[in-house]
Structure formats: C-alpha cells, structure tokens
C-alpha cells in the first residue's frame, strides 16, 4: 500500500484513500469534432506506459476529493513529486534532476 502525499491536504495518506486516474497531461482539444482518427486514437488509447518516471493522475477520492498529478518511478514505485491539477508539466530537465 503506497503512501501518497496529497498536495491539497498537504499530508501523506494511505493509498486506500486514493484512486489512480491514468496518464497525466493528455490534452482534450476544445474542438473535438475536428480531430482526426489518429489524434483521437492517440488521446484516448495510446499511453506512454514508461518504465521510469510516470506522469500520472491520482484522485484523493476518499479524502479531499481532488484530482492531482504525480511523478512516480514505475520501477521503485517512489513518488518524485506531486502537484496540483492545472500546474505545468515539469520539464524533462526537472524530471531528470528528481531522479537523481
């Protein structure tokens, strides 16, 4: 059971209070109807699924209820960073630093 820091509750809470909500920073275009089939496929089905740092969404569903984003290493399962929904995606440089 992971221990997850919720950026809204500002505390570590047990995984049982959270729900993983898939890959983060997938942009849903405002003009959906104009998307090509390829773009739709990319948005809805294609996933990074990295062996390394995953940018992912969690919801503190049995806590404050908020969705937020996290960087987690999928081999060690350690969280490198959590941040609120809407905050910018960390740059690759920042991610590389966090791994170290």
């Amino acid at each position, binding site marked *: *059971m*992971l221990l997850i820091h919720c950026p809204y509750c500002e505390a570590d809470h047990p*995984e*049982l209070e959270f*729900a*993983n909500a*898939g890959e983060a920073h997938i942009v849903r275009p405002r003009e959906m109807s104009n998307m090509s*089939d*390829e773009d*739709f*496929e*990319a948005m*809805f*089905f*294609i*996933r*990074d*699924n*990295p*062996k390394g740092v*995953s940018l*992912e969404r969690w919801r503190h569903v049995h806590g404050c209820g908020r969705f937020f984003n996290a960087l*987690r290493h*999928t*081999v*060690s*399962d350690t969280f490198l960073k959590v941040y609120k929904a809407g905050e910018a995606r960390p740059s690759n440089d920042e991610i590389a630093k966090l791994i170290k």
Partner: protein
Amino acid sequence: MKNFSALSLAREAMRGHKGWEKHWRSPEPKKQYDIIIVGGGGHGLGTAYYLAKEHGLTNIAVLEKGWLGGGNTGRNTTIIRSNYLYDESAGLYNHSLNLWETLSQELNYNVMFSQRGVMMLAHNVHDVQSAQRHIHANRLNGVDNQWLTPQQAKDYCPPLNISKDCRYPVMGAALQRRGGVARHDAVAWGYARKASAMGVDIIQNCEVTGINRAPSGEVTEVETTRGTIGAKKVGIVAAGHTSVLMEMAGVRMPLESYPLQALVSEPVKPVFPCVVMSNAVHAYISQSDKGELVIGAGTDSYLSYSQTGSMHILQHTLDAIVELYPMFSRMKMLRTWGGIVDVTPDRSPILSKTPVKGLYVNCGWGTGGFKATPGSAHVFAHTIAKDAPHHINEGFTLDRFRGGRLIDEAAAAAVAH
C-alpha cells in the same frame, strides 16, 4: 534431441542419469538472423518453434533478457479455457485449446495439461445473464460450456460454499470441462527444447536495448547487451515490457503495464478438484499437482514494472477465497509474487503487423494469455512468416483502436483469466 519416455527414463536410471542432454543449446548470438524474436516467454519460444516447424525457418534467435520463462509465463496461475464470447476470441482461444490437448506429445515434453474443468461462478442476476450469453454463443461457436445449478457446482467442487447466507450467494456457474491447468515452466522448457533442437538459437541474458531501422523504415537490427544483431524481421513478444520495446522502434502503444499478483498456500492433500473463478468477488483458485492452492489476485491500480504488489490486493483476494471456501481460513500462504501484465484498452491481445516494416508485435494478453500460448504462437508465426495474419488473428490488429473495431470481452462480461 534425445527422446523422453518412460523407457529412456528407466534406461537412464540404471546409469545414474548421466546421459541426459541439455534441454537447449546456449549458443553465442550470430551476427545476423532471418528472424529475431524478442522475449523468451511461452509465446516467444512457441513462435520460434512454429516458425521452424510449420514454415521451415530456422535461422531464428529468441533473445531473452533474463532466464527463459521468467516473465509472466513463470508466474501465472495457469488457468486454461476458451469459453470467450466474441467469435474472434473464441476462435483464437479454442484454437489454442485444441493445440494444448496434444502439446505434450507434440513437444515430447509433459506439460501436464490437466483438463479438470474451469468453473466460473455467477453471484447475481447480471452474472447469470452474462454466463448464459456466453454459453449460447459458445455452443454455436463449437466451444463447450455448460450451466450448473449451485448444487451441481458444489458437486463438481465440494469445498465451494453455496449457502444462501454468504455475502454473495452462488446462483450458478458456467463450466467448461475441457478447461484446466498446465505446468507453466514446462511449457517454456518444452518449446525451448524442441525449438533449439530444430536449430533456433535461444539466447538468454540478452536484453534488447535498441531497434534499428533503415532509412527506408524497415527494421534492420537490434541492439542488445550482447552486441548488435542483424535481422530481417523482428517479433516483439515481451508482455509487460512491450511499450518499452516498441518505443525503441518509434511506435507508441495502446498498452498499460500493471502488477498482477498470485500466491500459493502450503501444500495439502487433494481437496480442490477443479479450477474455480469468480469475477464478482475476484477469486481464482485451483490446486497444483504438488498440493498448493494456487490463487490469483488482482492488479494494483497503478503502472508498475516492479513485479511486486500491494498487501491490500492480497487481502482482498484472500477475503474472497475465504468467503467462498470458509474451510481455507486456516490454510497458510506460502509465497506470493507479482508479474507485469500488459493491458490493452479492450482487454484483448494484439497479434499484428505494425507500421514498421518487418516489425511484428504479440502483446496485450494482460491477465489471461497463458491459456493462449500455443494458439497465439502458432498464428503469430504465420503472421511473421507470411507477413500477413492468419485468419484466426485477423481481428487482433494494432490499428483496431483507430477505427474503433474493438474486441471488448471485458465490456461484455468481466475480466479475463
């Protein structure tokens, strides 16, 4: 290859088993192969075997980053069945089941395929409807599957709790008598042994770290921890690591990799005669020939490549096991482990050509691909050899997600296994 039989065993017994040969050769990788299979699990080794046997192609290498059979092939609960709903799936899994029935003889290796029957429990009206839908579709597809009343289910599996005051009483079950289990390791070893004997190079401790393509786009070679190896065709059969490998060729995949756990109890004398699954309460159980109860747990909710999982997942599984079989509460867990399962959006596999010429992919088996091993390997070999799918895997393309022609067993019923 020395024949395995009761006779050869007796002969060897007389001379202290000195004469047995290696199951497979361990050659150094050649510079160039016609076909490279990445991934030495059951599906990869099987693919190499069928390429050799059915397509006469033997200039093949299977590259395995660890030890062969050490992926999900070596860590699954070995449930085999074919009573899937959709025509495509029923076709594929039944093809596999047919091959299972003679696999030991074909490989001259006892894979201990045991057709003790797989029973899937129904706990609510919706389960019953879903089971009936499967049973009817299966009958018209030539796949055996029958409905059992709760009492018939208990007769088939005496430890089952069919009392009405269970939290989710059993309302009946679908039974596929041809279903069962097999010895997972033996499947990998049997294929490896036979493939090796036919000339396939099986190269362990050889991790593929790059896939190189010609300027015109087709694959030319793979980079590995044991050097660069050329190949005209490359088949990726790497289960949980498929996204990582396909990325090397520039192809992004509709896959997510999750940890899936299983556990065994201490061994006991035979008490559990068949395989029982319950999707509603999430419990999958059978008893191995050695006597342990082999129990499948669920996946964690997050991506992970760690081959371990959470304690609460184990708890949920054992909650369900004890609810359905209250006598097992005093049994003890002996070992638990995890595998990395690659899950597609429609929970059906991908057995397909790819946008990259010469690159083929076999993945997406998720929590349920062991049962498909022979069938999948057989049609994937065909796909690689002919550069075109076998009619059985025509629907399992990589590009089906673009158009939306999914094979969504999960949406239609519940999870695979």
